[in-house]
């Protein structure tokens, strides 16, 4: 995936990898490290939490948890790559695009996801996909990351077992 991002980028030093809270942030950090090893340049990183940009506040649940948003002060001219674990309806990415627009005008925004599970509700596609799987609605794709969950794994959870 790191190589594909490099192929996408015209100049790696303009890259800013922005992870979506929570697991996208760790994935962005890993990709940034790989690109830095490969190219010997420093790659910008950021994290965004899109909770406040959702179009369904009332569906968030009784105890919304809002993560940290930290971005380089000005994104104008940068090539931003949004990194997330799972691409599903596309609504998270829509919210992330809105939020990024409030931090400047990037030259280009790309999207990189570990798993594309289909089921889009918006006209959004990823530029870099780790793996595409067809998952029926109702089932869940859980991405586990060593930094947060103690192990690296992608689990498919059937509808009836979901919490």
């Amino acid at each position, binding site marked *: 995936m790191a190589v594909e991002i490099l192929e996408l980028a015209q100049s790696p030093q303009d890259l800013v990898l922005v992870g*979506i*809270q*929570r*697991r*996208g942030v760790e994935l962005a950090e890993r990709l940034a490290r790989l690109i830095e090893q490969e190219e010997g340049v420093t790659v910008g990183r950021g994290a965004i*939490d*899109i*909770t*406040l*940009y*959702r179009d*369904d*506040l*009332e*569906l*968030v*649940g*009784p*105890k*919304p*948890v*809002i*993560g*940290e*948003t*930290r971005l380089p*002060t000005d994104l104008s001219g940068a090539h931003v790559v949004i990194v*997330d*674990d*799972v691409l*599903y*309806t596309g*609504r*998270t990415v829509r919210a992330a695009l*809105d*939020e990024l627009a*409030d*931090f*400047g005008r990037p030259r280009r925004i790309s999207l990189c996801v570990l*798993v594309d599970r289909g089921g889009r*509700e918006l006209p959004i596609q990823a530029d870099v996909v780790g793996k595409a799987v067809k998952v029926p*609605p*109702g*089932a*869940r*794709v*859980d*991405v*586990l*990351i060593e930094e*947060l*969950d103690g192990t690296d794994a992608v689990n498919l959870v059937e509808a009836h077992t*979901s*919490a």
Partner: protein
Amino acid sequence: MSSALGKDLVGLEPLSADQIRLILDTAEPFKEVSERPIKKVPALRGKTIVNLFFEASTRTRISFEFAEKRLSADTVNVAATGSSVSKGETLVDTARNLEAMRIDMVVIRHGASGAAQFLGERIRSNVINAGDGKHEHPTQGLLDMLTIRDTVGRIEGVKVCLVGDILHSRVARSNIWGLTKLGAEVAVCGPRTLLPRGIEALGVRVFGRIEEAIEWADVLNVLRLQLERMEKGFIPSLREYYRVFGVTAERLARAPRQLTIMHPGPMNRGVEIDSRVADGPHSVILEQVTNGVAVRMAVLYLLAGGRPELAVAAKGASESPGGGGGGGSE
């Protein structure tokens, strides 16, 4: 419809320790929103909020208004003077008329204790108490707690002394309820005439001398001497009050540890607090003001959202709760 906090925020007394922690934790990310180049997120887009202020207020009203605007809500300010209230309309009639214009929330400041609860029980909109008589001023209590947590690093076990006019102070009451629920040790210090009788029953220590309070405390929350009530003879004179209870640099110099100084404002310099203390390196008075916006954003956000029944329905329907691993962000 009930959020994690219920329909209204009337005071800190009815809240649980977990609910208070939820508000403080939710306020953290909102601090960052106010540091952005574009200080606005769309979370409350389309919500209409009325700020209904029956008593004078600068800081609290502006703070609420900033909080509302930074969440993209539409806001209207109503002051008692210049509205139908001055023509004799009752509180409930005023609110029902506002509600007939389809509003979502009311922020109310009123001179009568219990006004916020009274209103909350009679209208469908969410009601937030911005100070009611001598009862409570919950968002001030919350911002004081957030400031203590920022400065000291925790609330549990911290010794906080409220100094001055406890009798007339809704800020004191909200502080006492909130801080004791989160495990802080709370004391009050002031002239006997300005301490409510039976205050010990709230689980607070009482100091009659400011020197004792300074020796004991980690944090002093210096309350405003409510000058407008002083003609009733609670204290002999302002000068005497300053001499006996004023928080001065000389008194603080004798403290066994470095004290954090707070004041909810507006300050009477040279009455309850020495200017050198108010502007000194251990004063967090302006941090309190900054935190006020974040805490109010958190309260508005939590009251507006979080309908558990819809959240459960949504989980089963089109969207997985995390999009990814347990509770992510799809």
